[in-house]
């Protein structure tokens, strides 16, 4: 490995004279350049970050205090009017009930992912095949997934054909009622994202030292006990991360319902509603306020999670 050769090379170079020579003449300048160095590295990343992420957020914040319609050259300060309207119109928050479907779906998703990860961490035939199959949907292009499942839920499409093959002939309109539509869409979401959770869990389980299992086997621990006392503690950090991602993900679902139903028949989510406020009814001011509120909610959820499951492993700093 490279690092060992470098270490070996170190003593050869006469470092001693170089050091003091550099430090002695201009301590102030060195200190200054030392202080400047990190910023030199950060200048490009920060510029991009501020330009393409924070400038738009600042704009959004500014718009949320106006009545701007999204395109007109004129707008008026309206103070906190948009926020007052948001908070007094309870129907705007009813769409969060839809998030409930996705929340339930992500519980199912995590449980399934955990189950398959556990099962496949033991010796199973065709293990790599199953692993690949479960993970692959996560890699597929979202537009392609939209088309695949539009065909799946069509009248006389894949699902209907399979059911009639099994002798359960039905002409149920899968996207036809709010319950059925949301369940179907949440199902697609599980189909698509299960793979990521699964692979994360599997990775965590496999990083648990093998001796622990061996010791457990010798002690005669059952599979359940192995799960309970070895696997579960090992995956706790990643489980926490998955939960937090699921909650904030459920609150800001957008792509799948937008492509498949456009929010019809009670499948409208908060983000779709925001997009519609902005683009259909030209209430960009109100929509910006809604986006700010969503951002705050997501931040709050993250903060609560950090409080409950303090976990330095998934922390950046």
């Amino acid at each position, binding site marked *: 490995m490279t690092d060992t050769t470098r270490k070996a090379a170190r003593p050869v170079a006469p470092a001693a004279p170089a050091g003091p020579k550099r430090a002695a003449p201009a301590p102030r300048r060195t200190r200054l350049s030392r202080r400047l160095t990190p910023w030199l590295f950060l200048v490009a990343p920060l510029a991009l970050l501020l330009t393409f992420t924070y400038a738009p957020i600042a704009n959004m914040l500014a718009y949320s205090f106006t009545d701007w319609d999204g395109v007109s050259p004129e707008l008026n300060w309206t103070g906190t009017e948009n926020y007052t309207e948001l908070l007094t119109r309870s129907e705007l928050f009813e769409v969060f009930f839809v998030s409930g479907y996705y929340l339930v779906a992500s519980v199912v998703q995590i449980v399934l992912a955990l189950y398959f990860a556990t099962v496949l961490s033991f010796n199973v035939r065709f293990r790599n095949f199953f692993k690949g199959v479960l993970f692959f949907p996560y890699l597929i292009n979202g537009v392609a997934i939209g*088309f695949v499942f539009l065909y799946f839920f069509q009248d006389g499409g894949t699902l209907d054909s399979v059911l009639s093959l099994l002798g359960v002939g039905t002409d149920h309109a899968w996207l036809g009622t709010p319950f059925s539509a949301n369940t179907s869409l949440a199902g697609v979401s599980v189909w698509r994202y299960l793979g990521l959770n699964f692979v994360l869990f599997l990775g965590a389980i496999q990083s648990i030292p093998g001796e622990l299992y061996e010791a457990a086997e010798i002690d005669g621990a059952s599979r359940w006990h192995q799960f309970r006392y070895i696997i579960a503690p090992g995956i706790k950090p990643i489980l926490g991360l998955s939960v937090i991602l699921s909650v904030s993900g459920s609150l800001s679902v957008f792509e799948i319902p937008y492509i498949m139903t456009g929010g019809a028949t009670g499948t409208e989510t908060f983000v779709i509603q925001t997009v519609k406020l902005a683009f259909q009814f030209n209430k960009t001011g109100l929509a910006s306020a809604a986006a700010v509120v969503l951002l705050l909610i997501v931040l709050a959820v993250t903060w609560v999670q950090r409080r409950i499951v303090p976990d330095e492993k998934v922390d950046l700093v």
Partner: protein
Amino acid sequence: MTRRTVARALVYLSLILATLVVLLPLTVVFLTSLKSSKEMANGSGALALPDDPLNFDNYVTAFRDGQMLSAFGNTAIILVVAVGGTILIGSMTAYAIDRFHFRFRKLVVALFLLAALVPGVTTQVATFQIVNSFGMFDSLWAPIALYMGTDIVSIYIFLQFIRSIPVSLDEAARLDGANAFAIYRKVIFPLLKPAIATVVIVKGINVYNDFYIPFLYMPSEDLGVISTSLFRFKGPFGAHWETISAGAVLVILPTLLVFLFLQRFIYNGFTRGATK
């Protein structure tokens, strides 16, 4: 003993069931892509096999009329430049954050962290004004800049990795007279290879699959990427599921091939991307 056998059988059953659930929708789309429009019009059931399993007409149609060739070209260019840029930017940021203690360091870290939580769709109007003011609208630069500028995950991956590189290496190089930049270039960067592989995979798949940014920023038809070109099938081929299916398969196929050949790297990539 028997209980163990039953349990084993149930486990396999669940795995097979899951396999079916995953593969069925995809298989049907594949089957549909091989059917002729006549078969479709005559009400060929979703599960029916195509009359001619070697009928690739729909692929020809999709590839030619759907302009998939230039789409793959554009995607490739964006992919290479954006991923390359992300690697540079991500590793530099991570190096600066991990190896230096400077004022506002916490603020910088928080800025990057917070950015990951913003629902992107909602700030599009403002983002558009900015992209356009740089004259990048309707050019490949728009998605490239946005992919490089708003990527947090790769910074995170590099950060995790740099932490595991002993600081003593830096010190040694510094004693050799290397300045910070030389240390980054000669010591740190070469040691980041596994992290780079991870970023290439995670970022590459994101870029390949992204829809909204190219959709919004590159309306010209000759600037289509695979997502937008496939999306445009909705119009002219809207009634032809066989062509849409062929297009979908064309888009999925490269992903499948990459996945089959680089499986191990991909798993490691995603696992490392989130944990470490």
